[in-house]
Protein backbone atom coordinates (compact mmCIF):
# COMPACT_ATOMS: atom_id res chain seq x y z
CA UNK A 1 0.00 0.00 0.00
CA UNK A 2 1.36 3.42 -0.80
CA UNK A 3 1.73 6.17 1.73
CA UNK A 4 -1.17 8.32 0.54
CA UNK A 5 -3.83 5.67 0.73
CA UNK A 6 -2.38 4.50 4.04
CA UNK A 7 -2.80 7.98 5.51
CA UNK A 8 -6.27 8.30 4.05
CA UNK A 9 -7.31 4.98 5.53
CA UNK A 10 -5.89 5.83 8.93
CA UNK A 11 -7.68 9.18 9.01
CA UNK A 12 -10.91 7.47 8.02
CA UNK A 13 -10.48 4.96 10.80
CA UNK A 14 -9.91 7.84 13.24
CA UNK A 15 -13.36 9.28 12.63
CA UNK A 16 -15.21 6.84 14.90
CA UNK A 17 -12.60 7.44 17.62
CA UNK A 18 -13.05 11.18 17.44
CA UNK A 19 -16.83 10.85 17.38
CA UNK A 20 -16.59 8.61 20.42
CA UNK A 21 -14.53 11.25 22.19
CA UNK A 22 -17.12 13.92 21.41
CA UNK A 23 -19.83 11.60 22.69
CA UNK A 24 -18.04 11.03 26.00
CA UNK A 25 -17.24 14.69 26.56
CA UNK A 26 -20.65 15.87 25.36
CA UNK A 27 -22.62 13.71 27.74
CA UNK A 28 -20.32 14.31 30.66
CA UNK A 29 -20.42 18.06 30.27
CA UNK A 30 -24.15 18.30 29.52
CA UNK A 31 -25.42 16.44 32.55
CA UNK A 32 -24.43 19.37 34.78
CA UNK A 33 -27.01 20.29 37.38
CA UNK A 34 -26.29 24.01 36.97
CA UNK A 35 -28.03 26.05 34.31
CA UNK A 36 -25.42 27.06 31.76
CA UNK A 37 -27.74 29.61 30.13
CA UNK A 38 -27.88 31.47 33.42
CA UNK A 39 -24.09 31.51 33.64
CA UNK A 40 -23.76 32.73 30.07
CA UNK A 41 -26.38 35.45 30.51
CA UNK A 42 -24.32 36.87 33.33
CA UNK A 43 -25.49 35.03 36.43
CA UNK A 44 -28.32 35.77 38.84
CA UNK A 45 -28.81 39.36 37.68
CA UNK A 46 -29.71 38.30 34.14
CA UNK A 47 -33.25 38.95 32.93
CA UNK A 48 -35.34 35.79 32.58
CA UNK A 49 -36.30 36.49 28.96
CA UNK A 50 -32.65 36.92 28.08
CA UNK A 51 -31.84 33.57 29.70
CA UNK A 52 -34.71 31.97 27.83
CA UNK A 53 -33.47 33.47 24.58
CA UNK A 54 -30.03 31.95 25.10
CA UNK A 55 -31.64 28.65 26.00
CA UNK A 56 -33.53 28.72 22.71
CA UNK A 57 -30.47 29.72 20.74
CA UNK A 58 -28.38 26.83 22.09
CA UNK A 59 -31.22 24.28 22.09
CA UNK A 60 -30.82 23.77 25.82
CA UNK A 61 -34.51 22.90 26.19
CA UNK A 62 -34.15 19.87 23.95
CA UNK A 63 -33.32 16.44 25.36
CA UNK A 64 -29.60 15.70 25.54
CA UNK A 65 -29.56 13.18 22.70
CA UNK A 66 -31.22 15.71 20.41
CA UNK A 67 -28.71 18.34 21.41
CA UNK A 68 -25.98 15.90 20.44
CA UNK A 69 -27.61 15.26 17.07
CA UNK A 70 -27.79 19.01 16.44
CA UNK A 71 -24.15 19.32 17.45
CA UNK A 72 -23.20 16.52 15.05
CA UNK A 73 -25.13 17.94 12.11
CA UNK A 74 -23.46 21.32 12.67
CA UNK A 75 -20.11 19.56 12.91
CA UNK A 76 -20.62 17.79 9.59
CA UNK A 77 -21.11 21.19 7.99
CA UNK A 78 -17.87 22.31 9.58
CA UNK A 79 -19.65 24.58 12.03
CA UNK A 80 -18.34 24.48 15.58
CA UNK A 81 -20.80 27.15 16.70
CA UNK A 82 -20.39 30.43 18.48
CA UNK A 83 -19.04 30.66 21.98
CA UNK A 84 -21.69 32.16 24.25
CA UNK A 85 -18.92 33.48 26.48
CA UNK A 86 -16.58 35.20 24.04
CA UNK A 87 -19.27 35.77 21.43
CA UNK A 88 -16.88 34.68 18.72
CA UNK A 89 -17.04 31.62 16.47
CA UNK A 90 -15.24 28.79 18.21
CA UNK A 91 -13.16 28.16 15.13
CA UNK A 92 -11.79 31.73 15.37
CA UNK A 93 -10.89 31.22 19.01
CA UNK A 94 -9.08 28.02 18.11
CA UNK A 95 -7.18 29.81 15.35
CA UNK A 96 -6.07 32.38 17.90
CA UNK A 97 -5.07 30.05 20.72
CA UNK A 98 -3.94 26.86 19.06
CA UNK A 99 -0.72 28.17 17.41
CA UNK A 100 0.56 29.26 20.82
CA UNK A 101 0.10 25.73 22.13
CA UNK A 102 1.59 24.23 19.01
CA UNK A 103 4.66 26.41 19.30
CA UNK A 104 5.06 25.53 22.97
CA UNK A 105 4.60 21.78 22.52
CA UNK A 106 6.85 21.50 19.48
CA UNK A 107 9.55 23.47 21.28
CA UNK A 108 9.12 21.23 24.33
CA UNK A 109 9.32 18.01 22.31
CA UNK A 110 12.44 19.21 20.52
CA UNK A 111 14.02 20.10 23.85
CA UNK A 112 12.98 16.76 25.34
CA UNK A 113 14.57 14.86 22.46
CA UNK A 114 17.76 16.92 22.69
CA UNK A 115 18.05 16.19 26.40
CA UNK A 116 16.57 12.70 26.56
CA UNK A 117 18.33 10.80 23.81
CA UNK A 118 21.96 11.68 24.69
CA UNK A 119 21.25 11.00 28.37
CA UNK A 120 19.67 7.65 27.55
CA UNK A 121 22.54 6.58 25.31
CA UNK A 122 25.13 7.71 27.82
CA UNK A 123 23.56 5.85 30.71
CA UNK A 124 23.19 2.70 28.62
CA UNK A 125 26.80 2.56 27.51
CA UNK A 126 27.96 3.47 31.00
CA UNK A 127 25.50 1.16 32.74
CA UNK A 128 25.70 1.14 36.54
CA UNK A 129 28.19 4.01 36.51
CA UNK A 130 27.62 7.29 38.37
CA UNK A 131 26.42 8.78 35.07
CA UNK A 132 23.79 6.06 34.81
CA UNK A 133 22.64 6.56 38.38
CA UNK A 134 22.40 10.34 38.00
CA UNK A 135 20.40 9.89 34.80
CA UNK A 136 18.06 7.53 36.59
CA UNK A 137 17.51 10.07 39.34
CA UNK A 138 17.04 12.85 36.79
CA UNK A 139 14.51 10.75 34.89
CA UNK A 140 12.57 9.52 37.90
CA UNK A 141 12.44 13.11 39.15
CA UNK A 142 10.95 14.06 35.81
CA UNK A 143 8.25 11.43 36.22
CA UNK A 144 7.55 12.69 39.72
CA UNK A 145 7.66 16.45 39.25
CA UNK A 146 4.41 18.33 39.67
CA UNK A 147 4.66 20.36 36.50
CA UNK A 148 2.84 23.41 37.86
CA UNK A 149 5.18 23.52 40.83
CA UNK A 150 8.27 23.19 38.66
CA UNK A 151 7.00 26.11 36.57
CA UNK A 152 6.48 28.27 39.64
CA UNK A 153 9.84 27.39 41.19
CA UNK A 154 11.60 28.16 37.90
CA UNK A 155 9.83 31.52 37.76
CA UNK A 156 10.81 32.22 41.32
CA UNK A 157 14.47 31.35 40.83
CA UNK A 158 15.22 32.24 37.22
CA UNK A 159 13.04 35.34 36.94
CA UNK A 160 12.53 36.86 40.38
CA UNK A 161 15.82 35.94 42.01
CA UNK A 162 18.24 35.80 39.10
CA UNK A 163 16.49 38.03 36.56
CA UNK A 164 17.69 35.93 33.66
CA UNK A 165 14.45 35.91 31.66
CA UNK A 166 11.71 38.45 31.02
CA UNK A 167 8.50 38.63 33.01
CA UNK A 168 6.65 35.32 32.79
CA UNK A 169 3.30 36.02 31.27
CA UNK A 170 2.64 35.88 27.57
CA UNK A 171 4.63 34.96 24.54
CA UNK A 172 6.46 38.20 23.69
CA UNK A 173 7.15 41.51 25.28
CA UNK A 174 4.03 43.47 24.32
CA UNK A 175 6.10 46.60 23.70
CA UNK A 176 8.13 44.90 21.02
CA UNK A 177 5.05 43.37 19.56
CA UNK A 178 2.75 46.39 19.40
CA UNK A 179 5.13 49.23 18.70
CA UNK A 180 6.39 47.70 15.49
CA UNK A 181 4.71 46.35 12.45
CA UNK A 182 4.90 42.69 13.18
CA UNK A 183 2.72 40.52 11.02
CA UNK A 184 1.45 37.15 12.09
CA UNK A 185 1.14 34.49 9.44
CA UNK A 186 1.26 31.24 11.37
CA UNK A 187 0.80 32.87 14.78
CA UNK A 188 3.85 30.92 15.87
CA UNK A 189 6.12 33.80 16.70
CA UNK A 190 9.41 32.00 16.22
CA UNK A 191 8.45 31.22 12.65
CA UNK A 192 6.74 34.52 11.90
CA UNK A 193 9.71 36.53 13.16
CA UNK A 194 12.15 34.51 11.08
CA UNK A 195 10.03 34.97 7.96
CA UNK A 196 10.17 38.74 8.47
CA UNK A 197 13.78 38.74 9.53
CA UNK A 198 12.79 40.27 12.86
CA UNK A 199 15.47 38.79 15.06
CA UNK A 200 14.56 41.09 17.95
CA UNK A 201 11.12 39.49 18.10
CA UNK A 202 12.63 36.06 17.58
CA UNK A 203 14.95 36.33 20.57
CA UNK A 204 12.25 37.93 22.65
CA UNK A 205 9.86 35.10 21.86
CA UNK A 206 12.58 32.56 22.52
CA UNK A 207 13.27 34.09 25.92
CA UNK A 208 9.60 33.83 26.75
CA UNK A 209 9.48 30.28 25.54
CA UNK A 210 12.48 28.91 27.39
CA UNK A 211 10.97 28.48 30.88
CA UNK A 212 7.55 27.12 29.91
CA UNK A 213 9.28 25.05 27.25
CA UNK A 214 11.62 23.43 29.74
CA UNK A 215 8.86 22.99 32.30
CA UNK A 216 6.79 21.10 29.77
CA UNK A 217 9.77 19.22 28.33
CA UNK A 218 11.13 17.78 31.55
CA UNK A 219 8.68 14.90 31.98
CA UNK A 220 8.94 13.94 28.31
CA UNK A 221 12.74 14.16 28.41
CA UNK A 222 12.64 11.78 31.35
CA UNK A 223 10.47 9.31 29.47
CA UNK A 224 12.70 9.49 26.40
CA UNK A 225 15.86 9.05 28.45
CA UNK A 226 14.54 5.96 30.22
CA UNK A 227 13.18 4.41 27.08
CA UNK A 228 16.34 5.12 25.10
CA UNK A 229 18.39 3.58 27.87
CA UNK A 230 16.43 0.37 28.10
CA UNK A 231 16.14 -0.13 24.36
CA UNK A 232 19.84 0.65 23.93
CA UNK A 233 20.66 -1.98 26.53
CA UNK A 234 18.51 -4.43 24.63
CA UNK A 235 20.03 -3.52 21.28
CA UNK A 236 23.69 -3.64 22.29
CA UNK A 237 23.24 -7.28 23.23
CA UNK A 238 22.20 -8.13 19.68
CA UNK A 239 24.41 -10.14 17.35
CA UNK A 240 24.65 -7.41 14.74
CA UNK A 241 26.26 -5.10 17.28
CA UNK A 242 28.90 -7.71 18.09
CA UNK A 243 29.39 -8.32 14.39
CA UNK A 244 29.69 -4.56 13.81
CA UNK A 245 32.50 -4.50 16.37
CA UNK A 246 34.10 -7.59 14.86
CA UNK A 247 34.00 -5.88 11.46
CA UNK A 248 36.36 -3.31 12.91
CA UNK A 249 33.93 -0.41 13.19
CA UNK A 250 34.98 2.13 15.79
CA UNK A 251 32.80 2.21 18.93
CA UNK A 252 31.43 5.62 17.93
CA UNK A 253 29.96 4.18 14.71
CA UNK A 254 28.74 1.03 16.47
CA UNK A 255 26.83 3.01 19.10
CA UNK A 256 25.61 6.13 17.30
CA UNK A 257 24.86 4.57 13.95
CA UNK A 258 24.07 0.91 14.40
CA UNK A 259 22.71 0.74 17.94
CA UNK A 260 20.94 4.09 18.17
CA UNK A 261 18.93 3.70 14.98
CA UNK A 262 17.53 0.41 16.24
CA UNK A 263 17.00 1.72 19.74
CA UNK A 264 14.93 4.57 18.34
CA UNK A 265 12.18 2.18 17.21
CA UNK A 266 10.59 1.63 20.63
CA UNK A 267 11.51 5.15 21.72
CA UNK A 268 9.47 6.69 18.92
CA UNK A 269 6.43 4.70 19.99
CA UNK A 270 6.78 5.85 23.55
CA UNK A 271 7.07 9.48 22.51
CA UNK A 272 3.84 9.08 20.56
CA UNK A 273 2.09 7.50 23.52
CA UNK A 274 3.30 10.16 25.91
CA UNK A 275 1.83 12.91 23.75
CA UNK A 276 -1.45 12.84 25.69
CA UNK A 277 0.53 13.50 28.85
CA UNK A 278 2.29 16.35 27.11
CA UNK A 279 -1.03 18.00 26.24
CA UNK A 280 -2.21 17.60 29.83
CA UNK A 281 1.07 19.15 30.90
CA UNK A 282 0.42 21.99 28.47
CA UNK A 283 -2.81 22.85 30.33
CA UNK A 284 -0.88 23.27 33.58
CA UNK A 285 2.13 24.96 31.98
CA UNK A 286 -0.07 27.48 30.19
CA UNK A 287 -1.91 28.20 33.43
CA UNK A 288 1.30 28.81 35.33
CA UNK A 289 2.92 30.96 32.64
CA UNK A 290 -0.22 32.82 31.53
CA UNK A 291 0.40 31.35 28.12
CA UNK A 292 -2.50 32.22 25.79
CA UNK A 293 -2.90 28.71 24.40
CA UNK A 294 -5.62 26.15 23.93
CA UNK A 295 -5.01 24.54 27.34
CA UNK A 296 -5.76 27.68 29.29
CA UNK A 297 -8.67 28.30 26.94
CA UNK A 298 -10.10 24.87 27.81
CA UNK A 299 -9.79 25.54 31.55
CA UNK A 300 -11.79 28.69 30.94
CA UNK A 301 -14.43 26.92 28.88
CA UNK A 302 -14.96 24.32 31.56
CA UNK A 303 -15.23 26.93 34.28
CA UNK A 304 -17.86 28.89 32.35
CA UNK A 305 -19.63 25.77 31.02
CA UNK A 306 -18.93 27.09 27.53
CA UNK A 307 -20.13 23.96 25.73
CA UNK A 308 -19.44 24.91 22.11
CA UNK A 309 -15.90 25.95 22.96
CA UNK A 310 -15.34 22.87 25.09
CA UNK A 311 -16.51 20.58 22.30
CA UNK A 312 -14.41 22.45 19.73
CA UNK A 313 -11.32 22.18 21.90
CA UNK A 314 -11.98 18.51 22.54
CA UNK A 315 -12.27 17.71 18.85
CA UNK A 316 -9.11 19.66 18.14
CA UNK A 317 -7.13 17.81 20.79
CA UNK A 318 -8.42 14.41 19.70
CA UNK A 319 -7.54 15.27 16.11
CA UNK A 320 -4.04 16.35 17.08
CA UNK A 321 -3.63 13.14 19.02
CA UNK A 322 -4.70 11.06 16.03
CA UNK A 323 -2.36 12.95 13.69
CA UNK A 324 0.58 12.62 16.06
CA UNK A 325 0.06 8.88 16.28
CA UNK A 326 -0.15 8.65 12.52
CA UNK A 327 3.11 10.58 12.21
CA UNK A 328 4.70 8.24 14.73
CA UNK A 329 3.66 5.21 12.71
CA UNK A 330 5.03 6.72 9.51
CA UNK A 331 8.28 7.59 11.26
CA UNK A 332 8.37 4.05 12.59
CA UNK A 333 8.24 2.64 9.08
CA UNK A 334 10.99 5.02 7.98
CA UNK A 335 13.30 3.90 10.78
CA UNK A 336 12.52 0.21 10.45
CA UNK A 337 12.48 -1.06 6.85
CA UNK A 338 10.95 -4.37 7.97
CA UNK A 339 7.70 -2.58 8.68
CA UNK A 340 5.47 -1.73 5.77
CA UNK A 341 2.25 0.21 5.91
CA UNK A 342 -0.52 -2.28 6.29
Amino acid at each position, binding site marked *: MDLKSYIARRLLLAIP*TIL*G*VTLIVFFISHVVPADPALVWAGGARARPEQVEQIRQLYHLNEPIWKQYVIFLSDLVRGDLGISPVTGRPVIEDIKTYFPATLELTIFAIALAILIGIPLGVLSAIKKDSPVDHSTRIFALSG*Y*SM*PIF*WLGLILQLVVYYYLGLVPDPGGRVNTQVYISSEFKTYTNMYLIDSLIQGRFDVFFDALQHLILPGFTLAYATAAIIARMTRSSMLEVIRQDYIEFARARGLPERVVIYKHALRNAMIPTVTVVGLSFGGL*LAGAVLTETVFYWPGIGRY*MVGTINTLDFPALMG*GTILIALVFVIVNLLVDILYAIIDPRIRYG
Partner: protein
Amino acid sequence: MERVTDFKEKHDAKIKEIKYSLFLVRNSPLTILGALIILILILVAVFAPYIAPYDPEKTNILARLKPPSKDHPFGTDDLGRDIFSRVIWGSRISLQIGFTVVFFATAIGTVLGLIAGYFRGWIDEILMRITDMFFAIPSLILAMAISAALQTRSIYTTMLAVTFVWWPAYVRIVRSSVLSLVESQFVEAARSLGASNRRIMFKHILPNSLAPLLVQMTLDLGAVILVAAGLSFIGFGAGPNTPEWGRMVAEGRNYMTTAWWTITFPGLAIFITVLGFNLLGDGLRDILDPRLRR
Protein backbone atom coordinates in the same frame (compact mmCIF):
# COMPACT_ATOMS: atom_id res chain seq x y z
CA MET B 1 19.05 -34.36 57.27
CA GLU B 2 17.65 -36.37 54.41
CA ARG B 3 14.52 -34.27 54.46
CA VAL B 4 16.36 -31.00 54.34
CA THR B 5 18.25 -31.96 51.21
CA ASP B 6 15.01 -33.24 49.71
CA PHE B 7 13.31 -29.95 50.31
CA LYS B 8 16.31 -28.07 48.99
CA GLU B 9 16.38 -30.05 45.81
CA LYS B 10 12.67 -29.82 45.21
CA HIS B 11 12.58 -26.08 45.58
CA ASP B 12 16.00 -25.38 44.20
CA ALA B 13 14.72 -23.20 41.36
CA LYS B 14 12.40 -21.24 43.66
CA ILE B 15 15.11 -20.70 46.26
CA LYS B 16 17.47 -19.50 43.56
CA GLU B 17 14.82 -17.09 42.28
CA ILE B 18 14.22 -15.62 45.71
CA LYS B 19 17.94 -15.41 46.41
CA TYR B 20 18.44 -13.61 43.15
CA SER B 21 15.59 -11.21 43.88
CA LEU B 22 17.12 -10.40 47.24
CA PHE B 23 20.45 -9.90 45.54
CA LEU B 24 18.85 -7.44 43.13
CA VAL B 25 17.07 -5.57 45.92
CA ARG B 26 20.28 -5.29 47.90
CA ASN B 27 22.03 -3.93 44.84
CA SER B 28 19.40 -1.32 44.25
CA PRO B 29 19.67 1.36 46.93
CA LEU B 30 17.19 3.54 45.04
CA THR B 31 14.48 0.88 45.38
CA ILE B 32 15.11 0.69 49.09
CA LEU B 33 14.99 4.48 49.28
CA GLY B 34 11.62 4.46 47.50
CA ALA B 35 10.22 1.85 49.87
CA LEU B 36 11.48 3.89 52.81
CA ILE B 37 9.84 7.08 51.56
CA ILE B 38 6.51 5.28 51.17
CA LEU B 39 6.82 3.69 54.60
CA ILE B 40 7.53 7.03 56.29
CA LEU B 41 4.71 8.65 54.32
CA ILE B 42 2.21 6.04 55.47
CA LEU B 43 3.37 6.44 59.06
CA VAL B 44 3.02 10.22 58.82
CA ALA B 45 -0.47 9.88 57.36
CA VAL B 46 -1.60 7.43 60.03
CA PHE B 47 -0.19 9.44 62.92
CA ALA B 48 -0.94 12.88 61.49
CA PRO B 49 -3.00 14.03 64.48
CA TYR B 50 -0.10 13.24 66.80
CA ILE B 51 2.67 14.66 64.66
CA ALA B 52 1.10 17.89 63.43
CA PRO B 53 1.74 20.68 65.95
CA TYR B 54 -1.29 22.77 64.91
CA ASP B 55 -4.81 22.38 63.59
CA PRO B 56 -4.26 22.45 59.82
CA GLU B 57 -7.39 24.49 59.21
CA LYS B 58 -7.03 27.00 62.01
CA THR B 59 -6.42 30.50 60.68
CA ASN B 60 -4.48 33.17 62.51
CA ILE B 61 -4.43 36.51 60.72
CA LEU B 62 -1.85 37.88 63.12
CA ALA B 63 0.68 35.24 62.10
CA ARG B 64 0.18 35.32 58.33
CA LEU B 65 3.03 34.65 55.88
CA LYS B 66 5.60 34.05 58.60
CA PRO B 67 8.86 32.55 57.30
CA PRO B 68 9.99 29.16 58.59
CA SER B 69 10.94 29.29 62.24
CA LYS B 70 11.11 27.04 65.29
CA ASP B 71 7.39 27.49 65.88
CA HIS B 72 6.47 27.01 62.24
CA PRO B 73 9.10 24.83 60.54
CA PHE B 74 7.59 25.42 57.07
CA GLY B 75 6.27 28.92 57.82
CA THR B 76 2.64 30.04 57.64
CA ASP B 77 0.36 30.81 54.72
CA ASP B 78 -1.67 33.90 53.86
CA LEU B 79 -4.32 33.03 56.44
CA GLY B 80 -1.73 32.27 59.10
CA ARG B 81 -2.22 28.50 58.93
CA ASP B 82 0.78 26.36 59.84
CA ILE B 83 2.13 24.94 56.57
CA PHE B 84 3.99 22.11 58.33
CA SER B 85 0.74 20.83 59.85
CA ARG B 86 -1.08 21.24 56.55
CA VAL B 87 1.60 19.30 54.68
CA ILE B 88 1.37 16.48 57.25
CA TRP B 89 -2.41 16.28 57.00
CA GLY B 90 -2.15 16.57 53.24
CA SER B 91 -0.37 13.20 53.13
CA ARG B 92 -3.66 11.60 54.21
CA ILE B 93 -5.53 13.18 51.33
CA SER B 94 -2.95 12.28 48.70
CA LEU B 95 -2.60 8.68 49.85
CA GLN B 96 -6.36 8.31 50.11
CA ILE B 97 -6.84 9.58 46.56
CA GLY B 98 -3.95 7.49 45.23
CA PHE B 99 -5.02 4.20 46.80
CA THR B 100 -8.72 4.64 46.11
CA VAL B 101 -8.28 5.53 42.46
CA VAL B 102 -5.72 2.81 41.78
CA PHE B 103 -7.86 0.25 43.59
CA PHE B 104 -11.04 0.96 41.64
CA ALA B 105 -9.28 1.51 38.32
CA THR B 106 -7.47 -1.82 38.76
CA ALA B 107 -10.63 -3.63 39.75
CA ILE B 108 -12.62 -2.33 36.78
CA GLY B 109 -9.71 -2.66 34.37
CA THR B 110 -8.81 -6.17 35.49
CA VAL B 111 -12.31 -7.55 35.07
CA LEU B 112 -12.80 -5.92 31.68
CA GLY B 113 -9.27 -6.79 30.55
CA LEU B 114 -9.75 -10.43 31.51
CA ILE B 115 -13.03 -10.55 29.63
CA ALA B 116 -11.61 -8.82 26.55
CA GLY B 117 -8.49 -10.94 26.39
CA TYR B 118 -10.14 -14.23 27.25
CA PHE B 119 -13.28 -14.12 25.10
CA ARG B 120 -11.85 -11.99 22.25
CA GLY B 121 -14.36 -11.37 19.45
CA TRP B 122 -16.79 -8.49 19.39
CA ILE B 123 -16.65 -7.77 23.11
CA ASP B 124 -12.87 -7.33 22.86
CA GLU B 125 -13.30 -5.12 19.80
CA ILE B 126 -15.79 -2.83 21.55
CA LEU B 127 -13.72 -2.54 24.71
CA MET B 128 -10.61 -1.73 22.74
CA ARG B 129 -12.36 0.98 20.73
CA ILE B 130 -13.62 2.52 23.97
CA THR B 131 -10.14 2.56 25.46
CA ASP B 132 -8.88 4.12 22.22
CA MET B 133 -11.29 6.99 22.74
CA PHE B 134 -10.07 7.50 26.27
CA PHE B 135 -6.48 7.57 25.11
CA ALA B 136 -7.30 10.21 22.49
CA ILE B 137 -8.13 12.80 25.11
CA PRO B 138 -5.74 13.94 27.83
CA SER B 139 -6.85 12.54 31.16
CA LEU B 140 -6.45 15.87 32.90
CA ILE B 141 -8.90 17.61 30.56
CA LEU B 142 -11.48 14.84 30.84
CA ALA B 143 -11.11 14.80 34.60
CA MET B 144 -11.60 18.58 34.59
CA ALA B 145 -14.83 18.18 32.63
CA ILE B 146 -16.07 15.55 35.04
CA SER B 147 -15.26 17.67 38.08
CA ALA B 148 -17.07 20.57 36.45
CA ALA B 149 -20.08 18.40 35.69
CA LEU B 150 -20.21 17.16 39.27
CA GLN B 151 -20.37 20.78 40.41
CA THR B 152 -19.26 20.12 43.98
CA ARG B 153 -15.56 20.35 44.65
CA SER B 154 -14.20 17.80 47.10
CA ILE B 155 -11.58 15.08 47.21
CA TYR B 156 -14.33 12.58 46.40
CA THR B 157 -15.14 14.25 43.09
CA THR B 158 -11.41 14.16 42.37
CA MET B 159 -11.33 10.43 43.09
CA LEU B 160 -14.34 9.81 40.88
CA ALA B 161 -13.00 11.92 38.03
CA VAL B 162 -9.54 10.39 38.07
CA THR B 163 -10.88 6.83 38.38
CA PHE B 164 -13.10 7.48 35.40
CA VAL B 165 -10.14 8.38 33.20
CA TRP B 166 -7.75 5.81 34.65
CA TRP B 167 -9.37 2.38 34.20
CA PRO B 168 -8.79 2.03 30.42
CA ALA B 169 -5.03 1.74 30.94
CA TYR B 170 -5.57 -1.34 33.10
CA VAL B 171 -7.84 -2.96 30.56
CA ARG B 172 -4.95 -2.75 28.12
CA ILE B 173 -2.33 -4.13 30.50
CA VAL B 174 -4.41 -7.04 31.73
CA ARG B 175 -5.68 -7.84 28.27
CA SER B 176 -2.21 -8.04 26.76
CA SER B 177 -0.89 -10.34 29.47
CA VAL B 178 -4.03 -12.49 29.17
CA LEU B 179 -3.47 -12.76 25.44
CA SER B 180 0.03 -14.06 25.96
CA LEU B 181 -1.11 -16.51 28.63
CA VAL B 182 -4.26 -17.83 26.97
CA GLU B 183 -2.16 -19.68 24.42
CA SER B 184 0.23 -21.08 27.01
CA GLN B 185 0.41 -24.73 27.88
CA PHE B 186 -0.83 -24.60 31.43
CA VAL B 187 -4.03 -22.91 30.35
CA GLU B 188 -4.45 -25.51 27.63
CA ALA B 189 -3.91 -28.17 30.27
CA ALA B 190 -6.43 -26.63 32.66
CA ARG B 191 -8.96 -26.35 29.87
CA SER B 192 -8.49 -29.95 28.80
CA LEU B 193 -9.09 -31.00 32.41
CA GLY B 194 -12.44 -29.33 32.21
CA ALA B 195 -11.82 -26.20 34.31
CA SER B 196 -14.48 -23.53 33.92
CA ASN B 197 -13.78 -20.23 32.21
CA ARG B 198 -14.06 -18.37 35.46
CA ARG B 199 -11.71 -20.74 37.19
CA ILE B 200 -9.15 -20.48 34.43
CA MET B 201 -9.35 -16.70 34.43
CA PHE B 202 -9.02 -16.13 38.15
CA LYS B 203 -6.96 -19.16 39.20
CA HIS B 204 -4.59 -19.50 36.31
CA ILE B 205 -4.39 -16.35 34.24
CA LEU B 206 -4.74 -13.58 36.80
CA PRO B 207 -2.01 -14.79 39.19
CA ASN B 208 0.37 -14.99 36.29
CA SER B 209 -0.25 -11.45 35.15
CA LEU B 210 0.22 -10.06 38.65
CA ALA B 211 3.85 -8.97 38.28
CA PRO B 212 3.31 -6.39 35.52
CA LEU B 213 0.10 -5.31 37.21
CA LEU B 214 1.86 -4.76 40.52
CA VAL B 215 4.57 -2.65 38.89
CA GLN B 216 1.99 -0.58 37.05
CA MET B 217 -0.06 -0.04 40.19
CA THR B 218 2.95 1.19 42.14
CA LEU B 219 3.94 3.61 39.38
CA ASP B 220 0.32 4.72 38.99
CA LEU B 221 -0.03 5.54 42.67
CA GLY B 222 2.48 8.29 41.98
CA ALA B 223 0.91 9.30 38.68
CA VAL B 224 -2.59 9.52 40.18
CA ILE B 225 -1.37 11.69 43.05
CA LEU B 226 0.29 13.93 40.46
CA VAL B 227 -2.86 14.29 38.33
CA ALA B 228 -5.02 14.86 41.40
CA ALA B 229 -2.65 17.60 42.57
CA GLY B 230 -2.80 19.16 39.10
CA LEU B 231 -6.59 19.12 39.19
CA SER B 232 -6.58 20.82 42.57
CA PHE B 233 -4.05 23.34 41.38
CA ILE B 234 -6.27 24.61 38.57
CA GLY B 235 -9.25 24.66 40.88
CA PHE B 236 -11.05 21.42 40.05
CA GLY B 237 -10.07 19.49 43.16
CA ALA B 238 -10.54 19.71 46.87
CA GLY B 239 -12.66 22.48 48.35
CA PRO B 240 -11.44 25.56 50.21
CA ASN B 241 -9.51 25.10 53.43
CA THR B 242 -8.69 21.47 52.62
CA PRO B 243 -4.99 20.86 53.24
CA GLU B 244 -4.51 19.37 49.77
CA TRP B 245 -0.97 19.87 48.46
CA GLY B 246 -1.88 21.02 44.93
CA ARG B 247 -4.39 23.46 46.30
CA MET B 248 -1.84 24.80 48.78
CA VAL B 249 0.56 25.55 45.92
CA ALA B 250 -2.23 27.36 44.06
CA GLU B 251 -3.10 29.40 47.16
CA GLY B 252 0.53 30.25 47.83
CA ARG B 253 1.18 31.27 44.26
CA ASN B 254 0.04 34.86 44.76
CA TYR B 255 2.48 35.33 47.60
CA MET B 256 5.41 33.31 46.32
CA THR B 257 7.64 36.29 45.45
CA THR B 258 7.59 37.48 49.04
CA ALA B 259 6.94 34.17 50.78
CA TRP B 260 8.71 31.36 48.89
CA TRP B 261 7.82 28.81 51.53
CA THR B 262 4.11 28.93 50.69
CA ILE B 263 4.64 27.02 47.45
CA THR B 264 7.96 25.30 48.14
CA PHE B 265 6.99 22.86 50.90
CA PRO B 266 3.64 21.58 49.60
CA GLY B 267 5.18 21.12 46.14
CA LEU B 268 8.17 19.35 47.62
CA ALA B 269 5.78 17.04 49.45
CA ILE B 270 4.07 16.08 46.19
CA PHE B 271 7.41 15.58 44.48
CA ILE B 272 8.93 13.39 47.19
CA THR B 273 5.78 11.28 47.55
CA VAL B 274 5.48 10.62 43.84
CA LEU B 275 9.23 10.04 43.62
CA GLY B 276 8.92 7.40 46.33
CA PHE B 277 6.32 5.46 44.38
CA ASN B 278 8.31 5.82 41.17
CA LEU B 279 11.57 4.64 42.75
CA LEU B 280 9.80 1.64 44.22
CA GLY B 281 7.87 0.83 41.04
CA ASP B 282 10.90 1.24 38.82
CA GLY B 283 12.95 -0.99 41.09
CA LEU B 284 10.19 -3.59 41.23
CA ARG B 285 10.03 -3.64 37.46
CA ASP B 286 13.74 -4.42 37.20
CA ILE B 287 13.45 -7.09 39.86
CA LEU B 288 10.36 -8.76 38.41
CA ASP B 289 11.25 -8.43 34.75
CA PRO B 290 12.33 -11.88 33.55
CA ARG B 291 14.11 -10.38 30.55
CA LEU B 292 16.45 -8.46 32.81
CA ARG B 293 17.07 -11.46 35.04
CA ARG B 294 20.01 -12.68 33.09
